[in-house]
């Protein structure tokens, strides 16, 4: 095998491989550790954590859709304090690289979370989930409002200082994702995570009512991959120097490669792990083989390759 340099970076954070879990699709990591060593993949992105414990939404919380699924979890979680006490030390013990995803209901909550994370050793980066469509009032989705998005990132940036990279996670449910992206980068985000789930609904034709307890849910899985690739391509075209963590329906090395060509520096795998607990290490191997087959010596050379015009392509 050709030795492809498979490493990637998000600002000052280095990862040996570009394949990460997706927030909310690997819980805190313990559940997947039976299937593969967590240190073998690029990073574990933990389930978005809020300041206080939260029970989340009523069930049913899922509906399968053609090549996708809806979820409506409502950010169930133990709260940051319990999380830092129980989950982080365990992940560090596993030698996993850790990206902590945070979510809040107010700009303050995000800053509070950042303050609690500032002193914690062993965290590679913070993913700021400003885009979860599952919060009670859709009007309150930060990621749909350029001003609110900036404020959250600005608050986190000021609190956290310059040490830990911040990755802002955006929602595709906006008219112009590039302008939202520009806003959060201006406000201090080092990287962008694209995309969160797409707002959707399924109606149960037996009960003739919305199927999910929370009525609407977030659409994920291969169904949304073309939307994710488009978002990554658009944002990379506008800001080629901002690293992107791509996600949305990646289920094979081919899919991960597609996102990297579109402009992603790393790829998170979410829903695919539900259907296949070994998805991430398998995708990782497939991607490595594909890069070698295409003659890339390092992953970095493939990032955004689809943007090169045929003229500059030798």
């Amino acid at each position, binding site marked *: 095998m050709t030795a492809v340099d498979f490493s990637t970076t998000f600002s000052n954070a280095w990862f040996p491989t570009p394949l990460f879990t997706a927030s909310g699709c690997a819980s805190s990591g313990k559940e997947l550790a039976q299937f593969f060593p967590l240190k073998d993949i690029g990073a574990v992105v933990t389930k978005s954590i809020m300041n206080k414990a939260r*029970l989340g939404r009523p069930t049913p919380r899922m509906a399968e859709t053609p090549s996708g699924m809806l979820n409506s979890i409502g950010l169930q979680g133990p709260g940051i304090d319990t999380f830092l006490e129980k989950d982080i030390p365990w992940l560090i013990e596993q030698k996993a690289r850790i990206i902590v995803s945070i979510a809040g209901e107010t700009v303050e909550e995000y800053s509070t979370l950042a303050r609690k994370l500032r002193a914690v050793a062993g965290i590679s980066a913070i993913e700021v989930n400003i885009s979860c469509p599952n919060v009670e009032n859709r009007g309150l989705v930060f990621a749909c409002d350029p001003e609110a998005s900036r404020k959250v990132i600005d608050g986190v940036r000021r609190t956290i200082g310059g040490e830990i990279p911040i990755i802002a996670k955006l929602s595709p449910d906006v008219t112009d994702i590039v302008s939202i992206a520009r806003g959060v980068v201006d406000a201090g985000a080092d990287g962008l995570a694209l995309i969160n789930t797409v707002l959707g609904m399924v109606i149960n034709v037996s009960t003739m009512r919305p199927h999910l307890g929370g009525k609407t849910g977030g659409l994920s899985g291969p169904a949304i991959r073309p939307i994710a690739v488009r978002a990554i391509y658009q944002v990379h075209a506008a800001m080629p120097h901002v690293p992107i963590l791509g996600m949305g329906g990646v289920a094979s090395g081919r899919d991960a490669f597609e996102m990297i060509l579109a402009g992603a520096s790393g790829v998170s795998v979410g829903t695919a792990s539900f259907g296949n607990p070994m998805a991430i290490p398998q995708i990782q191997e497939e991607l490595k083989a594909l890069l070698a087959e295409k003659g890339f010596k390092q992953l970095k050379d493939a990032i955004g390759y689809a943007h090169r015009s045929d003229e500059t392509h030798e």
Partner: protein
Amino acid sequence: MSQINRNAAQLRATIVGNKLVGQYHQILISVGDLVDRCKPGNFVAINVGGDSSRMILRRAFAISRVAHSASFGGTMELIVAPHGQGSKWLCSQPEGAIIDLVAPLGSAFGIPTEPVQVLLVGGGYGSAPLFGLAEVLKTRGCKVDMLLGASTAGKIYAPMEGKRSVNSLRIYTEDGSMGIAGKVTDPITELISDLDVAVIYSCGPMGMLSAISALTESTDVVHQCAVEESMACGIGICMTCVLPVRNSDNSISMLRSCIDGPVMDGADVMWDLVGKNPLVQP
């Protein structure tokens, strides 16, 4: 290593039997040594639809029994109701087909340390894991009585050989097409006192489990039930399969029925809050 899913493995396994029993398919899968890790109550998660399927999630099925066979090695038996597209696909797989499965998953029925009187209550295909459980309980010296119920005869699963491990078996159908006309929960209160039941093991529709919990509430009977919630992953990473469970300090947790279940203590599950907004924040 974490303790979660600690017995689970993913493997490609061959279907070695598929026969119709009433309205169910009895599916036998050759899984090798994996059988040694399977306990009554555990379930298996199976990929459905093949390579180019639009169904991206696994389907969960209780492991009905495991056995060692001369021709197929370790085998796992499932009782599958052809419900929607995924389970119908599984039921249509011929012998020789290879499926991708993850097993064993979830919690198992707790086995009493003393030889006590137990009652097994199964609804529909919920009886599947109870026969394997009955065998284990019998070897521990328990006295095992069983009640099975369904809407109609074709939905009663009660194999001949399974009956050997139980002391008595009573069948209830709502339309009276088999056994006694009525609900499987009808005789429970009386049986608890008549037989001096120590533990009820139940598996079936959520309504049945909840009804049994109500019946055992003011008694000393332990109620171990195997719950069934919609599951996206089956391994604890998605948080879709949660149930409201009361903690010892009276606070509520939303526990994952795939890793903290499917077998749960019926007294802890807050049946009234299932599918509702558990407003209370702990």
